[in-house]
């Protein structure tokens, strides 16, 4: 049985904020860039129906924007690993998940020109508070 290592160093308040902010910002940038890439490629189900799985994979991996998005998502992933190593999951998971929902709604409206109407804002805020309550 593996015994968890004790946390020997507890980061300060601003260090914790910086770790969570890094996760949120990298994640938002990655998701917006990936969404933009997938919108430019088109319906993957349709592409797969016409060209098979290979055609769908080719359509994705030949899109430069996709790799920009994946780069940021990889940064977000390693930021998350780093944050989980220093902070509790009960702090990192709810705060990062909640904040990412709101920053994505803002970024989706500004950069992707998505129609973020009252219904979507309400959903984002309700889910944001819900995720915080659930995971806190």
């Amino acid at each position, binding site marked *: 049985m593996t015994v968890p*290592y004790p946390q020997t160093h507890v980061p300060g308040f601003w260090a914790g904020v910086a770790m969570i902010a890094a996760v949120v910002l990298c994640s938002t940038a990655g998701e917006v860039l990936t969404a933009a890439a997938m919108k430019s490629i088109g319906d993957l189900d349709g592409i797969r129906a016409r060209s098979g799985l290979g055609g769908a994979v080719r359509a994705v991996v030949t899109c430069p924007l996709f790799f920009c998005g994946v780069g940021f998502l990889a940064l977000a992933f390693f930021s998350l690993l780093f944050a989980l190593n220093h902070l509790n999951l009960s702090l990192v998971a709810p705060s990062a998940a909640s904040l990412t929902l709101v920053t994505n709604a803002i970024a989706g409206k500004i950069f992707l020109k998505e129609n973020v109407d009252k219904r979507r804002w309400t959903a984002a805020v*309700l889910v944001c508070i819900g995720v915080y309550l659930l995971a806190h």
Partner: protein
Amino acid sequence: MKSKLTLRQYLILLTVAVCAPLGDTCLSRGMTQMPAISAAHPATLIAAVFTPWVASGIALLITFFACYLTALSWADLTFVLPATAFGNVIVALLARFWLQEPISLERWAGIVLITVGVGFVAQGPSMTERPERDAPAESLAVEDGQREAAPACLPGQERAR
């Protein structure tokens, strides 16, 4: 026009919803079993990738990512993210009824809020209409020999399909 999803598309959203929180849980378990990692030695993070819990988490997250990309190709980011947050509710309910973990009143409130939020977003359209984006779909239909069935639509016209 874009508001109705097929059963297959709902299943893809469900896979996204379930794999993401399960993957994160595996990562968390794996990382808490590691010694503290310093920012001065980032290479230690690479070694963490090959531990069993972190590797399982990554496998689940790869599945999540493939389905997530597919979902983003036919739905808006601001639709996919709230809709797939329902996975948090599934994990909480599994913890309550399968693992017999207690759920506080605060968490039940969270479950209700997420469910209502998902219901809100699921009632609306999944994709913002973009005439310039839809144009290639029309030309593809023409390539498929459906010229008569798919007349070119001008921006602002009500679309037949």
